[in-house]
């Protein structure tokens, strides 16, 4: 094997110009001569792209589908004819014609898949070196001593340094000439004239030889990663498209549509045995070979890497010639300078690309002519029956090549045009939206969420250091979006596209976390945390909490004991989930009735007001809002009825109340779920006004007088999601209602929002009513009742408050704030 290879190398290293020109055979060896300027980089620039790509192994997989697709009818025809007429392989001299089908396969990189795998943990093979790369015994290929070899400098430490610390453009250095071994050139260039009639398979063998073959000992520390890093760097610095590691990529330039039959010049896999190609081909430098590697690297340092080798005149001639017949490649115009050499102006741009495209046709023409000249004699020697076919193929190829070049030009231009359009479109949209968001009218209030929109923060050094200022600015920008409510509606519509459209009104949906209720959790679910929508009604699932009921009862008992002369009532209101949750979803909610009963049993001194039975009795009526988490005025009315019965006072029954009804009510459950089912099915909002006069005063949470106001606000002042806020006019502080009831009974209500709807119904039952929200109240409940002279105290909360977070608030007002 190696013997064969060597023999091939030798044959390949014949002075090629001798073959070409025949007459003058330049000397193979030559003594070192002085030169005035260091000529750099003998490898043709055009080659680098291909070389690098194939070395990195990333494009080794050519797009086979494209290759098979290539409809060279002529080629196929010719192949058939050849098979019929001349089963033998076409003689070398004549094979020039069928180059398209015999383009050499790209160098196969055997090791790459494994290597890339090894980058992640868990690969099978554990490498021996520190960096995880296997080292294999070296198989050096000794070139013929065609040139003078001087003792090699120790490159082990020198090489990387040379590479990484490039010097600025050196002055003339007579000694340091860039020189290359002959072998390098012979492989890197397009050896179109090599005729190997005897050993075709050897040629192929060399072409298919793995690029990552044995390493040389110079880089035994980690030669390959070093090589790789350089390749990557070259790749990057030349602006080549780094191939995505995992996808098969075509050999086409990205963004270029593949015209039919375009890949005349691209690699086409051919059967190994018979495919001896005389097509011009580029061979990647074999980096396992020291000479080649040095040569390869020397391009990126301006120090020539091996000073002991001198090129012959023949090689120089060869180089010049070969550069003139380079085939057209995508990167052919990429003649940028090495960025490392031009530190003073490092930002060299990839501006030659367009030029290369425009020159593509010229190069194409040149190329075609060259190949025509070469082909001509070949045709003459063909048997007459084949000549016609071959000539036809040649003609067709030429035509195809021309049209392919034309199409490529068009395609590349098209691609660029589309990218320009896309880039401008996207950036335009972005910039215009940015301007719109800055200049548009910003909302200050969000009706759907019932909250104020974020405001621009005020600057202070402290807020800046705490990152409040910067976060405030971005928060303001994110929140105060012009036309916010329109966008929110759009989100609601689009969110419904996630699933099947609703079939009927019995559609069920869950929001938030939900699981079957087993034992009560440590921490109770809050209202809105877990919502089920069924039969157009949203219900918040109830969880109860461990020990919540006991704690509530304990607090009320404690409070009752502190006020022996006052009647204390406790009303724990159930929510809609108790009455409207279908049987099959019952297991997702704990039983509110059980919680209420438990509390009522535990209350020792306070009077329990059980509203559950009366509500259950009327559950066919609209006692709970469908789109809100509260009950309706009617539900509150029935609760009042139960309370008044317990408190033994007057009461105005429904028939004497004035009802006001408003349509279009879509309450808090819509804001929590954003469900289209709710927004599409609004309900009516109703409140009752009791006969008789009363006045309402608002106090702040510390019971300081603020203002006179209304017990029931105007619906027009509230958005449909907040109609429930008309009770107490949305006031969360302390409200004092003085009525004409004239029974000298003073009621203090400690409540959550459920009781708000009850107050209007109680105006004929108590002379004075103080309403305190447990979540905001800042005083001690006991002291407050003393101060106001309360005769009756009502704790009116929902089950969610009695077992949930609001218990802490209750505990605060009953125990902590004592003076």
């Amino acid at each position, binding site marked *: 094997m190696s013997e064969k290879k060597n023999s091939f190398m030798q044959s390949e290293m014949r002075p090629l110009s001798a073959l070409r020109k025949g007459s003058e055979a330049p000397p193979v060896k030559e003594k070192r001569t002085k030169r005035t300027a260091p000529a750099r980089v003998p490898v043709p620039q055009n080659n680098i792209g291909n070389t690098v790509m194939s070395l990195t192994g990333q494009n080794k997989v050519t797009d086979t*589908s494209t290759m098979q697709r290539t409809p060279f009818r002529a080629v196929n025809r010719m192949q058939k004819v050849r098979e019929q007429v001349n089963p033998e392989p076409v003689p070398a001299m004549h094979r020039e014609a069928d180059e398209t089908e015999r383009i050499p396969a790209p160098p196969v990189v055997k090791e790459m898949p494994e290597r890339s795998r090894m*980058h*992640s*943990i*868990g*690969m099978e093979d554990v490498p021996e070196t520190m*960096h995880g790369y296997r080292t294999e015994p070296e198989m050096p290929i000794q070139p013929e001593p065609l040139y003078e070899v001087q003792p090699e400098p120790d490159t082990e430490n020198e090489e990387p340094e040379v590479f*990484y*610390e490039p010097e600025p453009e050196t002055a003339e250095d007579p000694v340091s000439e860039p020189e290359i071994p002959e072998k390098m050139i012979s492989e890197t260039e397009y050896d179109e004239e090599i005729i190997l009639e005897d050993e075709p398979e050897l040629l192929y063998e060399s072409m298919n030889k793995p690029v990552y073959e044995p390493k040389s000992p110079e880089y035994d520390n*980690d030669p390959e990663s070093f090589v790789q890093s350089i390749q*990557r760097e070259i790749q*990057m*610095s030349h602006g080549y498209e*780094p191939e995505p*590691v995992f996808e098969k990529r075509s050999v086409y330039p990205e963004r270029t549509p*593949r015209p039919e039959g375009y890949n005349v010049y691209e690699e086409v896999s051919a059967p190994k045995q018979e495919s001896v190609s005389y097509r011009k081909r580029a061979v990647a430098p074999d980096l396992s070979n020291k000479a080649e590697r040095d040569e390869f690297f020397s391009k990126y340092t301006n120090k020539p890497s091996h000073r002991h080798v001198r090129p012959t005149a023949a090689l120089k001639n060869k180089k010049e010639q070969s550069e003139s017949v380079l085939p057209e490649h995508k990167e052919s115009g990429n003649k940028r300078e090495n960025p490392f050499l031009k530190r003073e102006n490092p*930002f060299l*741009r990839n501006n030659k690309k367009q030029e290369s495209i425009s020159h593509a046709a010229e190069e194409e023409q040149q190329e075609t002519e060259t190949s025509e000249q070469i082909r001509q004699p070949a045709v003459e020697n063909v048997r007459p029956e084949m000549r016609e076919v071959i000539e036809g193929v040649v003609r067709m190829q030429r035509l195809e090549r021309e049209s392919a070049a034309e199409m490529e030009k068009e395609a590349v231009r*098209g691609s660029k045009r589309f*990218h*320009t359009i*896309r*880039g401008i479109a*996207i950036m335009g*949209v*972005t910039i215009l939206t*940015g301007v719109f968001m*800055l200049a548009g009218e910003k909302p200050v209030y969000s009706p759907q*969420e*019932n909250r104020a929109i974020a405001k621009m923060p005020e600057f202070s050094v402290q807020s800046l250091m*705490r*990152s409040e200022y910067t976060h405030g600015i*971005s*928060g303001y920008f*994110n929140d105060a979006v012009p036309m916010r409510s329109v*966008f*929110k509606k*759009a*989100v609601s519509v*689009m969110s419904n596209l996630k*699933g099947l459209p609703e079939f009927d009104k019995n559609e069920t*949906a*869950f929001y*938030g*976390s*939900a*699981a*079957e209720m*087993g034992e009560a*959790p440590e921490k109770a679910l809050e209202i809105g945390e*877990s919502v089920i929508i069924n039969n157009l009604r949203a219900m918040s699932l109830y*969880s109860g909490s461990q020990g919540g009921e006991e704690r509530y009862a304990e607090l009320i008992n404690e409070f009752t004991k502190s006020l022996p002369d006052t009647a204390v009532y406790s009303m724990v209101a159930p929510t809609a989930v108790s009455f409207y949750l279908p049987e099959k979803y019952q297991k997702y909610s704990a039983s509110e009735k059980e919680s209420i009963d438990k509390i009522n049993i535990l209350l020792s001194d306070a009077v329990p007001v059980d509203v559950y039975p009366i509500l259950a009795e009327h559950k066919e009526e609209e006692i709970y809002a469908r789109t809100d988490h509260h009950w309706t005025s009617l539900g509150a009315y029935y609760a009042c009825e139960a309370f008044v019965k317990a408190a033994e006072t007057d009461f105005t029954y429904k028939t004497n109340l004035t009802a006001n009804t408003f349509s279009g009510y879509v309450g808090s459950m819509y804001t*929590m779920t954003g469900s289209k089912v709710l927004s599409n099915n609004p309900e009516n909002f109703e409140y009752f006004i009791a006969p008789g006069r009363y006045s309402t005063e608002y106090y702040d949470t510390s019971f300081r007088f603020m203002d006179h106001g209304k017990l029931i606000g105007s619906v027009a002042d509230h958005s449909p*999601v907040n109609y429930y*806020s008309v009770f107490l006019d949305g006031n969360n502080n302390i409200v004092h209602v003085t009525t004409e009831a004239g029974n000298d009974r003073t009621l203090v209500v400690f409540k*959550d*929002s459920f009781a708000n709807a009850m107050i209007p119904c109680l105006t004929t039952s108590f002379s004075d009513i103080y309403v305190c929200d447990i979540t905001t109240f800042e005083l001690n409940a006991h002291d407050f009742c003393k101060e106001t002279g309360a005769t009756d105290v009502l704790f009116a909360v*929902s089950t969610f408050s009695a077992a*949930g977070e609001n218990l802490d*608030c209750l505990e605060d007002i009953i125990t902590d704030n004592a003076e």
Partner: protein
Amino acid sequence: MVFSELFFIYLFLPVCVILYYVTKEKYRNIVLTIFSIVFYAWGEPIYIWLLLLSVCMNYLLGKMISYETDGTSKFGLALGLLLNTGILVITQHAGFIAENINAIAGTAIPVSENIIAPIGTAFYTLRASSYLIDCFWGRIPAEKKFSSFLLYMSLFPIMPYGPIVRYEEIRSQFICRSASIVNISEGMGRFIIGLAKKVLLADQLSLIADQFLGADNIEMQTVLGSWYGVAAFALQVYFTLSGFADMAIGLGKVFGFRFEENFNHPFMCSDVTDFWQRWHITLGKFFHDYLLYIPIFGKRRKYAGLFIVGLCMGLWHGASWNFVIWGIFFAAIIAAETALGRKNLRKIPTAVRHVYSKIIIAVSFAMFYFTNTSDMGACLKNMFFIGDGGFADALLGVSFKNNIFLIAAAVIACFPVSSFIKRKAEEYGSQRMYTFMQTAETVALCVLLAVSSVFLVNSTNEPMLCFQI
């Protein structure tokens, strides 16, 4: 600041891109550095000083390491690794460590609940470590220009969520990179795809995951419900991370950088080893290259190293025991696969391998979700029929029906569909098809951007109940 917020997309980014492109080429690095610093300082006005300190420190240590003398460079490396790990541990794990010391030794080190780790620390410390080790190994020379190193450490596209770009990959790009409208087009396209993954898929999937796994009484969850929730969570994590990776790569491309891919359709893996070659690739590579083969375990290093990597990877993801368990679990599985051998593994039918790997991945994500180990145990019990929750329930059916298109879209997006379509269209090969495809892509990107933005408007949704209940 995160990439998926309106402020970044519509204010910071356009300003940055415009200024970048109007600036002369040689000043562009400066523009990028300034914007990167602003980006970081915006989110972390205090920790920016830590970042700058870390940059200076690592810059000097890099120089120290590249000294000829062996002792100096070894000392520099040791010091650098210690300091970088120190920054990482102090910012991310201080609370975790204190909690555990309290639990073990009974001390009362105060632990604040509200410690929020500064963004990007986990990534830039790894970047700095890789730089120092590479310097030590001679893979790269120490950077001479401080400005380049500052840009490397603070570059905002890779700051908050990676990928962990190594210095050797990026150093030449600081000197020379292309910048044109094609870059903007491709980069913004990639950015929008990442944004859509995050906003339209991940955020919506998180609702499902929280619905099925977030309940307090997780032990009552059903078998299918647990699997469903875990699958949704796995997809959520994937789309979040790969979305941010896409955004980072896209932003990099806008400025002419080319970063390594971070995800390669991980759910297409055939075994767990394969999964880790496709999942968070740069992180896997980092731990593989710098940690896996530390020769401290002799011949057993193959397996022992895996467990060390698993432990570190778990701790890197979060300061909680469940992440440690998660990392060790993966290490054990991969060690088992390694012990079995790749050839033997391949003998198993492909379908079986795929099912096996998906089960393992689902289990791992169940571990990933619950920071509370007892909840984690409950969920795992439920998944394998040992729980109390029953097999399936109505909730699951309702949720599946209500999210069926979302789930379908998410599953499809796990496969390389767009590249498949593109390839098919390319094979078709006509210019008309090409025009159609390009136009369709442009329109699709604009639509995705618009829809994602509308969803982002909704991200500040905070409904306030009209009263405290």
